[in-house]
């Protein structure tokens, strides 16, 4: 995985709305005198910088690479988020692991200009289903992997539905991510290991999922954004008779409720 790309998707991916501007940004910028430069203080002569960035191809499968190509004029410092400072004109090959907005900032004496290009990465193992209903389609749900990285599963002790200390910490991290992505609704699945009885384990799984829900609600996430489903000992993650397998099954699992 490309390290730069990893850092990129950690930063909030809120620039999707700028996507349509990506290639046209330079064209829409005024080529004449910058209104800001008309003021009495700054040097009137410095021309405004221009910048554009393209990616070829715009859509790749996971593991393939894409060539970024950027051009700027009248700029002194050009940075691309996640890559860092780069030459004012240049190309670079990247392999993002997720669909990524490459955000270029060009600073010059005449001001600052931005340009974007979005590279779509098709992840074959976990294709993202289309939004199930219209109410979700307007918001930014982020990516599944970003979600799972920030909202990890929480695991429980044997026959217990109390959150462990590590799970409490994870819950506050999860709450921060969910606060930053208000469009995400969460489904929490409660699971148990395969020992004991099916009916009791379903109730226990419900208690586990509700414990995780309570932690998120106490951290400020609206209860209406969270749905809870207990699977008990149905649909086991693994079926070995070992403590490590049992532990993996004793969990509350978070996913995006689409």
């Amino acid at each position: 995985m490309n390290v730069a790309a990893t850092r990129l998707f950690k930063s909030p991916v809120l620039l999707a709305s700028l996507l349509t501007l990506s290639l046209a940004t330079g064209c829409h910028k005024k080529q004449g005198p910058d209104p800001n430069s008309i003021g009495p203080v700054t040097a009137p002569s410095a021309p405004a910088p221009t910048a554009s960035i393209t990616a070829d191809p715009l859509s790749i499968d996971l593991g393939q690479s894409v060539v970024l190509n950027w051009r700027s004029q009248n700029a002194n410092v050009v940075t691309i988020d996640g890559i860092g400072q780069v030459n004012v004109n240049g190309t670079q090959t990247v392999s993002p692991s997720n669909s990524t907005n490459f955000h270029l900032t060009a600073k010059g004496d005449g001001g600052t200009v931005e340009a974007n290009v979005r590279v779509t990465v098709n992840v074959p193992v976990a294709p993202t289903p289309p939004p199930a209903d219209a109410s979700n389609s307007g918001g930014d749900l982020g990516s599944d992997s970003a979600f799972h990285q920030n909202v990890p599963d929480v695991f429980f002790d044997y026959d217990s539905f109390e959150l462990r200390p590590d799970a409490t910490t994870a819950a506050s991290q999860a709450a921060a991510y969910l606060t930053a992505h208000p469009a995400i609704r969460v489904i929490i699945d409660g699971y148990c290991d395969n020992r004991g009885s099916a009916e009791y384990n379903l109730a226990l799984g419900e208690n586990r999922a509700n414990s995780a829900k309570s932690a998120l609600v106490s951290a400020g996430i609206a209860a209406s954004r969270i749905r809870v489903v207990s699977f008990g000992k149905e649909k086991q993650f693994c079926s070995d008779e070992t403590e490590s397998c049992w532990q993996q099954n004793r969990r509350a699992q978070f996913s995006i409720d689409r």
Partner: protein
Amino acid sequence: MQSATRKLFLFLLTLLSTTALATAQDNVFTGTNTGADRIRIAVSDFKPGAGDTTLKPIFDATLYSDLANAGIFDIVSKSLIPQTTPGTPAEMAIAQWSAAPASAAMVAFGNISVQGGKLITNGFLFDANNAQYPQVLAKQYSDNADENAARQTAHKFADEIIFRLGGGVAGIAETKIFYIHAAGGQKEVWQMDYDGANQHAVTHLGAISLSPRISPDNTRVAFSSLGRDGFQIRMYSLLLNRMVNFSAAGGTNLSPAWSPDGRSIAYSSSRSGDPEIWISDTNGAIARRITSFKGPDVSPVFNPKTGAQIAWISGRTGLPQLYIMDTDGSGVQRMTDGGYATSPSWSPNGQFVAFAWNRKYGPGAPGGQDIYVMEVASKRWIQLTHDGGRCDFPSWSPDGRHIAYANTADGRDEHMKIWTMLADGTQKHALSSTGGDMPNWSWK
């Protein structure tokens, strides 16, 4: 405390056996050995009449199996009975049957034939010790000439004999067992005859369904099924052969139980955020909550004798334990003193609760999950299964003499089979192949 009680039982048991009592009694009296010694009964193969004779072996085997499994007879081995096959009372030489080696007290015999596309069966029961007026029972049956009808006719005749000789308790040979059949990642509600014959699907939902419970009048099956919003109580009508309404509620809803009057359903619902026992009508309406402790509360079952009490499983103190309360939520009593107890089933006479119990449950602890029967009034218990792998979901037969349960010899859920045994733990045998789970015996 419990182990001390158990030692006392063992002592009493030793005392009973050493005093050579005529009847060997259970230390918890389950009624299996009610009254005198088991009646020694001989079952003659029925005499074939006209027509198709392929149904006769099915009838003979079913009748023999019904009487052998009834739990009240000492059945004469077929190798000891006379070699004649009497088909009518006139052909019956009762002295041959009462003499050694058969030494039968009762003899069942008759004839079977196919006439005009109908299976005609004449069955008789003779008292071998009453040479002058030996006839106890004479029945004639007419049914379709097919295998299922041959089995059902045998069940009816067996139930007549069991009713006459078993202290007036109706036999169970015509009852059904509802259960979960797991295959291909799906779990559907299935049904079979009490002896494992005639296994077939009831629901075709393509989902994971659990905990089937047949209504007291045999018209509906309540169960819980996994949908988008988790497990919900569902209802299937055996009269309409389709799903009927049971209103969905929030949270996980599971383990329904019918009240004996058929008007209420108790089940576990977490609509309040915590799994509690609720009671509603049979459409899911007028629901009221009757438990209020944090922690899992599941698997309620009504006292079928009174309808006034509920036994259920609660994890309010940690590991799941067996509890009993009144149906208004008062009078809560904890019944088990430790371990991991699940899946109660209340006996039809109200005296006992059968349940699955792992008394040493815990990570790395030895011991297994076995079927136990507890006498409600005294909290004394006996263990019915031993060292046979994990057992769960006991369900009483309506005559209180049998318990069906699920067992997996190697502990793996996918190898679960349905078994049956007498309520004293004897005569265990499997009813289903692997993939059978959660048996529920019909009320009649």
